[in-house]
């Protein structure tokens, strides 16, 4: 198996006991842990170079601006975007709202359709609901198949000229499903629709190339990819960003402010109102460097292997059901499951007593949970610091749960 265990010592948090047991962190789909390189990049910035960016006429501010813009360049290269196509913001949620308010509010009208998938995270649903209230555009959903893939026939049926935007997650945070974004984009572009890709789970776990995907907009979060909280990324094709209105207004995003109206700065600054998350952008760039030093193919390979190992071990447990594709080629490392009639919350508590951290609930995807008929599931999710023995600890805890609840 691709062995990345030597990296564990880069993550200070992993070296602790939780409820008397070594911490086994299996909730990276919610947020990832941070290597010392990232923690230090943030602290070092505050210790040596902290100043506001783009404003100062002094060396310190110039240095801070260079670091900040360097971070943008690093992140842009990571997803194969041009530097001007990357705007920093608070997170995936914030980026998707920016698209909904900046593009949707100005371009949607009654009769238009917003086509989403039933496996979207709330972050790629609720902003569109808000914008549909203001514009009168209608929301339509693509279901998934029995084996947890996007239903491409249904997608083809639903896609027509009324559809102005397609919102799709590149990787489901519940099912793990990797969606065929390029195929979706090609079809969408044929009817003149834009494609908004929620890459919150994809960018941390596999090589993502916005050009190869032909995504029109794409969003991801720093905190799920070894970076700090408080930072996210909006990618948009240059021509779209240039034509688009900003969602937020304030300092630094203007060219001029008159009393009645204003003109905007050039991209990407137009989309960065106010003081940006400076230290966070620099921390994210350190995370990108860290991931690139390993290689995203290696990260993905390790995850495929550990997920395969977990799927084997989990499906061998009596009464356990996995919700997601069985084939690791089509899925990431988020594994959702239920075990007999033991409530996922009870599983999480029992595992927690053994130091194993998993998540239980609807995972911010209630339409999906309803379609699965499972208001709550348990979810274990993996990242580069997880090892097969983490999976073993999970399985042991699930066996104990069966005993406690007397599952035959």
């Amino acid at each position, binding site marked *: 198996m691709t062995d990345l265990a030597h990296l564990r010592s880069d993550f200070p948090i992993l070296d602790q006991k939780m409820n008397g047991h070594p911490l086994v962190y299996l909730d990276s789909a919610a947020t990832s842990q941070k290597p010392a390189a990232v923690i230090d990049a943030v602290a070092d910035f505050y210790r040596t170079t902290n100043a506001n960016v783009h404003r100062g006429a002094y060396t310190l501010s110039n240095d801070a601006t260079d670091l900040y813009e360097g971070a943008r360049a690093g992140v842009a290269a990571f997803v194969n975007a041009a530097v001007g196509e990357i705007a920093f913001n608070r997170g995936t949620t914030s980026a998707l709202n920016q698209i909904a308010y900046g593009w949707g509010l100005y371009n949607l009208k009654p009769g238009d359709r917003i086509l989403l998938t039933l496996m979207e995270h709330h972050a790629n649903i609720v902003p569109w609901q808000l914008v549909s209230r203001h514009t009168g555009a209608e929301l339509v959903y693509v279901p998934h198949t029995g084996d947890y893939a996007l239903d491409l026939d249904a997608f083809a049926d639903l896609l027509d000229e009324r559809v102005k935007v397609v919102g799709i997650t590149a990787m489901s945070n519940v099912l793990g499903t990797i969606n065929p974004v390029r195929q979706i984009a090609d079809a969408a572009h044929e009817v003149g629709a834009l494609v908004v890709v929620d890459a919150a789970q994809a960018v941390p776990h596999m090589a993502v190339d916005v050009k190869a995907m032909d995504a029109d907009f794409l969003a991801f979060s720093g905190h799920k990819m070894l970076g700090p909280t408080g930072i996210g990324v909006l990618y948009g094709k240059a021509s779209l960003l240039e034509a688009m209105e900003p969602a937020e207004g304030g300092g630094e995003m203007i060219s001029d402010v008159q009393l009645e109206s204003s003109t905007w700065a050039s991209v990407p600054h137009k989309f960065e109102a106010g003081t940006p998350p400076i230290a966070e952008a620099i921390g994210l760039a350190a995370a990108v460097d860290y991931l690139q030093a390993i290689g995203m193919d290696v990260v993905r390979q390790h995850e495929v292997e550990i997920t395969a190992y977990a799927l084997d071990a989990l499906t061998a447990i009596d009464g356990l059901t996995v919700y997601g594709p069985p084939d690791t080629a089509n899925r990431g490392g988020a594994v959702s499951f239920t075990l007999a009639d033991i409530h996922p*919350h009870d599983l999480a508590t029992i595992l927690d007593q053994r130091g194993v951290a998993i998540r*239980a609930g609807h995972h911010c995807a209630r339409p999906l949970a309803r379609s699965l008929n499972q*208001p709550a599931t348990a979810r274990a999710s993996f990242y580069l610091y997880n090892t097969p023995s983490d999976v073993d600890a999970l399985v042991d805890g699930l066996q104990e749960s069966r005993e406690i609840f007397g599952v035959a």
Partner: protein
Amino acid sequence: MSLNELYREVILDHYRAPRHHDHLADPSGTAEGKNPLCGDEVTIEIALDGDVISDIGAIGVGCSISQASASMMSEAVSGKSRAEVEELVRKFKVMMAIEDSDEEIVNPDRPGEALGDLEALQGVRKFPVRIKCADLPWITLQQALEEAE
């Protein structure tokens, strides 16, 4: 923090076979409680005879703690007056460390001493994440009582 303290047999029993798990024909008060973050849901329906709870329905979906708490509560409050229920709710919240107590009603080793069967829930106190699960039916009962006013 032992799991045996949390998952007492009586709790699992109430979870598997919840009491009063039926809707009432003509409730004097109804309330729905839900915990949006974990998805626990409880509906409490009460029938009042004067100020006495003559019947109760406690229907829900969720984890063992929330559902067992609802079931045990439904037994404990049946036939009790408003005042008695209020006293019970207070004692329950003190047991769960949700409310402080001024009086000396609490035996630190057995905070649920005065609560009969409900004492089985006192193990939850040691699992802060789960206290809100146990509390959900009680908050909902209070709302149902208010509604019946």
